[in-house]
């Protein structure tokens, strides 16, 4: 498993990176943490003759916390998120989700931009971005644009990114106080990609009724999703085990569940319902300060 010899380029600025992408077209690929790309090249599932490493592009590795939310540069690594002491309060789901990503060595290299661009439907970060209504900042030859995460993921490993574009950052909206949240994932072994996962959060109005429920699911369909039917079910209701169970059951009913060698769709659907329910129960017990 050795890929053919290739050229390795190290642009010093974002503009240079974009120019190189323009110049080399389909022969070139961006390299970030390499934790998805390098195995694909070695397995010869992907091929390219030029690697453009983003390592020396300044400014992409920052985590910025303001009252407008949290911004993760595309070269922020999983371990940067794990080690950031601000995140557990300003975006607690992020800290919870990252714990489930891969293994120590991979978390040491894998990055936000790489994960978004790779677009694996079982990945945590894309799902979190969709569930939270995050937006992705993109730079290309015609300048910058930004796209809601929900519109970014199209099919497994296929995104709305153009070949000559670079992901710059991911922006999460502000996280209010007293928000309830839960994160549940099931995988065969610790660090494996999820067989299914559920992300939930909601707020409660002064009468203790649920408002703005968000339920995200991953590892289940072609892209990360929001379970609109479950959200509708919860909206305006009081939190409780009965309503959680029903919301979970409804939420998974119409999902187009994918099957693979590890599990058929019946199991995956039932598993997702279990996880949504458990995440809701968890949320009811876990509220941010």
């Amino acid at each position, binding site marked *: 498993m050795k890929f*053919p010899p290739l050229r390795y380029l190290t642009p010093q600025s974002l503009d240079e990176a974009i120019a190189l992408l323009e110049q080399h077209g389909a022969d070139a690929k961006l390299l970030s943490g390499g934790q998805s790309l390098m195995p694909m090249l070695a397995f010869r599932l992907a091929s390219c003759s030029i690697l453009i490493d983003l390592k020396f592009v300044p400014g992409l590795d920052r985590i910025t916390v303001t009252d407008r939310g949290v911004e993760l540069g595309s070269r922020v690594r999983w371990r940067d998120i794990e080690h950031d002491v601000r995140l557990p309060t300003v975006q607690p789901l992020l800290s919870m989700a990252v714990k489930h990503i891969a293994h120590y060595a991979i978390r040491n290299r894998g990055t936000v931009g790489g994960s978004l661009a790779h677009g694996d439907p079982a990945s945590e970060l894309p799902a979190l971005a969709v569930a939270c209504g995050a937006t992705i900042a993109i730079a290309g030859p015609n300048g910058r644009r930004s796209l809601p995460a929900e519109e970014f993921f199209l099919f497994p490993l296929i995104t709305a990114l153009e070949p000559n574009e670079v992901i710059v950052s991911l922006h999460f909206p502000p996280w209010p106080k007293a928000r309830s949240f839960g994160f549940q994932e099931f995988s065969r072994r610790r660090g494996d990609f999820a067989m299914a996962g559920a992300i939930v959060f909601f707020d409660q109005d002064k009468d203790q009724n649920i408002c703005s429920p968000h339920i995200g699911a991953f590892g289940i369909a072609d892209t990360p999703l929001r379970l609109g039917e479950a959200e509708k079910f919860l909206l305006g209701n009081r939190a409780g085990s009965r309503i959680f169970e029903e919301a979970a059951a409804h939420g998974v009913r119409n999902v187009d569940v994918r099957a693979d060698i590890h599990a058929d769709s019946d199991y995956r659907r039932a598993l997702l319902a279990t996880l949504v329910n458990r995440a809701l129960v968890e949320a009811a017990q876990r509220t941010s300060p």
Partner: protein
Amino acid sequence: MTRSNAYIGSPLDRIEDLRLLAGAGTFVGDLKPDNLLYAVILRSPISHGRIRKIGTAAARSLQGVAAVITAAEIGEVPIIPVRQHGKPEGEPYRQPVIAGEKVRYVGEPVAVVIASEQCIAEDAAELIELEIDELPAVATHEIAARDQTLLFENTVTNLATTFYARMGDADMAFATAEYKRKEKFSVHRHTASPMETRGLLAEWNPELQRMVVSGATKVPFFNRNVVAEMLRLQPSQVDLIEVDVGGGFGARGEFYPEDFLIPFAARYVGGNVRWVEDRREHLMAMNHAREMYADLEIACRKDGTLVGVRGRIDIDLGAYVRTNGFTTPRNVVQFVSGPYLIPNIAIDAFSYLTSKTPTGTYRGPGRYEASFFCERLLDMAANDLGIDPAEFRLKNLIPEDQLPRPLATMAGLDRTWQTELDNGAYGVVMERCLKEFGWEEKKKLQGQLIDGRYHGIAVGNFVEGGAGGRFENARMTIEKGGTVTVAVGSTALGQGLQTILSQIAADALSMPIERIRLLHGSTTLVTQGFGSFHSRSTVMGGSAILLAAEALVALLRDKGASHFGCEPDQVSVSDGYVYYGTKSMEFSAFAGSEVERQFENRKLTYSYGSHTAHVAVDPGTGHVELLDYMTVDDVGRIINPATLHGQILGAIVQGLGSTFLEHLQYDENGQLLTGSLADYLLPTATDFPNIRGISLGLRPCPNNPLGAKGAGEGGLIAVGGVIGNAIAAALRSMSVEPRDLPLSPPQIWRLIQQAKASNHNPKMNEQS
């Protein structure tokens, strides 16, 4: 601290560790002689088909490519011989070293590319035009049994062979039995996955006409003779060299197609060729194992006394009969009764060829499978009869006074196919295991739903065959500085062989272990040797060392006597000195003294023991958490408790991987779907943290001078049955009975759904 004569039985640190941990190990991939060329093997992407064309022109013309070898370049294509447990009817199904006319599994070698760089060889392999006319895949043993598509047109059937295990009169026993139950079970395809994949470096010296192959493991002497014959060389022109090896588990080190192809390639290009298997290749090319389907019936008296077991086992052999012949199919029918006294046995085994990777022996071959079938049946019977599963087993273990006891006879076969259990206190060890586990205490949790999870416990017993392979050689030489070099034919696969055999040698010569230098494995060291398999290297290599030490001491006494002018029996030997009264001479004065001895043995050793498990099942996800696993075994005599403990725990983890995780999956076209370790799931450090083991040296083996028994496999053998039973016990309220491995979360979940459905619908219950 290092007092002589106290090494056996003490938990010495592994001598090999320091070197390996310091990164000073040398594995095949580390060998880089000058002018090294790299080999890459093009493998069939098709399960079953006829080769129409292998176009190699484009590959050959790629810069850096030295050669492309196909069947055409080889000429008369050698066929790989069977090393053990062959039968005449299996001969037509042996594997050619390369596919020339037909391919019979995905992964079968079709061409070898030799190039100056690994990546160039891979690029060239992609340029080979391989055209294959597809034939219908024979993807299951059921399809094979129909004989509509024959894998070998020169035969009349895909059924390679049958075995009949017989004892007593099963028909009579079943006709009069008070209780019977018939069940179907299956074990899935999975296999050994050593940390290091296979690899070979072949160095051909055209001037000397000599071939040196590095990377030998397991059976270097046999493989040396085979490759020499295939290359039409004398065995003396070929040496197989053992370097560091990252695990074998029975699958590595057999004679595979590559064991011919790489030396052939080296001679073809007149130089040095190295091949290191990648993981994707490994998963399709190394022996697979275990896939079988059982249809078995158990009979006992109302009081739980076993009276018989009968039925059939269908085995999916894969595409060829490889070097292990029919070891596994024989074992599975022979060992269904395990350590239990079952007086009447009639079990037939049918071994079918299918268009999938060939199978072979894997740690506990046939015994893991047999144990799963037997232990599941025992728990079902115990539950039906309302007897505690532990009590049920204690009642049926073979009592010590009935040992030795033969296992079921392999009908129509000579004595090399038969075996008998040697000795042991089966009940004593099982009771100890129950006590260590806390059976009485944990029994209260049986079937309980606690915090959303169902708890269950189970117990099972195993016997483990050891010390196969008729002989082993050891040579001892006194070196100039007075150290003793010990050379054995046993090979190291990471099992701590160097440490263990050094301990035995040091004690046998009554000298400090620091002054023993142990060499092993390579064909250059001793005149003959066997290798490491069948939990044999400690027993066989160790016994050969005892004999050699005895001979060396006798020789030194003779030499000492003539020097001191006394009788040999007045001379003593210890601590590296030869003594007569107050006079002494150092070993160095006898430098060059050398003896070689062979230990011969036809009787196997049978270590034995018990396993217990406590699990919690999450009905929402199907996940099973292992809360406790305890095993107690008796290995006759413990050489090194630390390395033994490692063997046992490692084997249990491997068994848990087999039972819960590892699965080589194929589709109906015979395509292998699990091509990487992202899909073929191995147990990792965090999966099974709660495993305990105690080893005893309770009953020394009567069949060898060491008293030791093979002990590398027992940790694995009982795992499937014990876990299956613990899950059944946990889910008893729903009548869930796991019958098919692996016990993956979707599988457990599905069993629960089916049980719920049939509990709601009693009609369905009746039918099933």
